């Protein structure tokens, strides 16, 4: 019964577009969070911020923000009467990316900051004494801390890919448009199609496993 459902699923075109959208939304969100999060993580790991309790507490709280709350806030910001109501992105993949961006950026900032804070302070001094420019110093520090940062990216991607609370509110779970693997599971459960829902879950886990494996292999190869 379960495997019948799985086979039916795997042979349908819809499931691949759903899985594709899941990947597209999560990867875009984490990519944007990485581009903006790493520089912020570098800034917050500087000596003057490193031990600031307030900043650390904010980042750490951000890492555990409840997805539904983020969904609600993003919804209210982009609803017609909201502050950004004119940017009509509600119920599109764009809104889902925005929500997951907010969800994951604290993880990138936090892990970057933690990793960089562990690097001996005299590394930059040594590099400078060897005549390195600021850009070269930053680049060298990033290279030294790549494994920690990759851990952050892996965590962020895992959180985004498996999340449902935020995207169902801002995306609306629209079939063929904003339905992703997690919200598809909710729809099938609400229809009483538990085995189909479980099969979807298996597909979600498999993709998540493959994605994590790729990132992990990058980490190990770079050690």
């Amino acid at each position, binding site marked *: 019964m379960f495997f019948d459902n799985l086979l039916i699923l795997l042979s349908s075109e819809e499931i691949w577009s759903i899985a594709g959208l899941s990947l*597209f939304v999560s*990867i*875009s969100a984490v*990519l*944007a969070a990485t*581009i903006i999060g790493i520089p912020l993580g570098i800034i917050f790991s500087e000596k003057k911020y490193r031990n600031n309790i307030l900043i650390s507490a904010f980042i750490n709280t951000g890492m555990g923000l409840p997805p539904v709350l983020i969904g609600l806030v993003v919804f209210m910001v982009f*609803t*017609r*009467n909201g502050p950004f109501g004119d940017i*009509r*992105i*509600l*119920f*599109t*993949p*764009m*809104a889902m*990316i925005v929500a997951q961006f907010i969800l994951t950026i604290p993880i990138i900032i936090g892990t970057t900051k933690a990793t960089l804070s562990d690097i001996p302070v005299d590394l930059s001094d040594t590099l400078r004494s060897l005549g390195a420019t600021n850009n070269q110093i930053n*680049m060298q520090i990033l*290279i030294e801390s790549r494994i920690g940062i990759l851990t952050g990216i892996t965590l962020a991607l895992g959180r985004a890919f498996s999340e449902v609370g935020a995207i169902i509110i801002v995306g*609306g*779970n*629209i*079939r*063929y*448009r904003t339905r992703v693997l997690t919200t598809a599971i909710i*729809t099938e*459960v*609400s*229809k*009483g*199609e*538990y085995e189909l829902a479980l099969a979807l879950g298996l597909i979600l886990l498999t993709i998540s496993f493959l994605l994590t494996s790729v990132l992990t292999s990058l980490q190990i190869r770079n050690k």
Partner: protein
Amino acid sequence: MNKKIIIFFVISVGLVSSTTYFGIQHYNSANSLLISTTTSVENTGLLYLIIDKFTEETGIKVSVIAKGSGVAVDLGRQGLVDAILVHAPSLEQELLDEGIGINRTTLWYNYFLIAGPTNDPANISNANNVTEAFNRIYDTQSLFYSRGDNSGTHIMELSIWKAVPDAAKDKWYIETGSGMSSTLVAANENPGYVLSDLGTYAQLSATDELSNLAIHYDEDDKLYNPYSYMVINPDKYNNLHTENAFEFLEFLQSDVVLKIVRGLVLGGVQLFTPIGE
């Protein structure tokens, strides 16, 4: 290393801009229509049967957001959708009064039903009317599951309780705060009475999820459940796809759709009846 970073940035920028394009195109496309509806209409698959035909004929792509009627109406009130298709007459009336909803058209109906433990401990199956049935549930303090989510079904349920004198809600009254199917599944786990729409009940029964429940009371005039379509007033909000919404309304009343509606049978039960039949 620097080359890698440049490639990384190029790919990122490409992804982000294509997403933006993807997102904006969705709204600018003159060929689209966004409607909010209730889960019962989506889950039975009726709407997709209709939409597929509609898209085939007109090329207009229809997107559906399925929530409880309360939320579905509210999305209309905020101008976030082009039209709504719900079953909550009192909420629909509010939207008409506010001038936001126009051209309300009742399309189909069915009846709410009261399901409960197979042995019917409150003996509602021979009640004379729905108020009496609810009264008996209250008198015997039998478990009753309420959706508690401001949906069309919940509003109907509350209006019946209002007619039951001193129906103080206590331990026997369980609010699930979730959709019809989750509520039915809860009512099946630890059997209790529940008010449901026909579509969702038939859907779950067909997949064998409601083995501990049976229908004990239905087809009372008071449990009449009409589904109506309403267009959101383009004078209230701009950038709506109102023309498409009207074209869909016309299509909903066409013979093609009536035939689809009549043909939707689950477990020997016709789920929706076109109005006037």
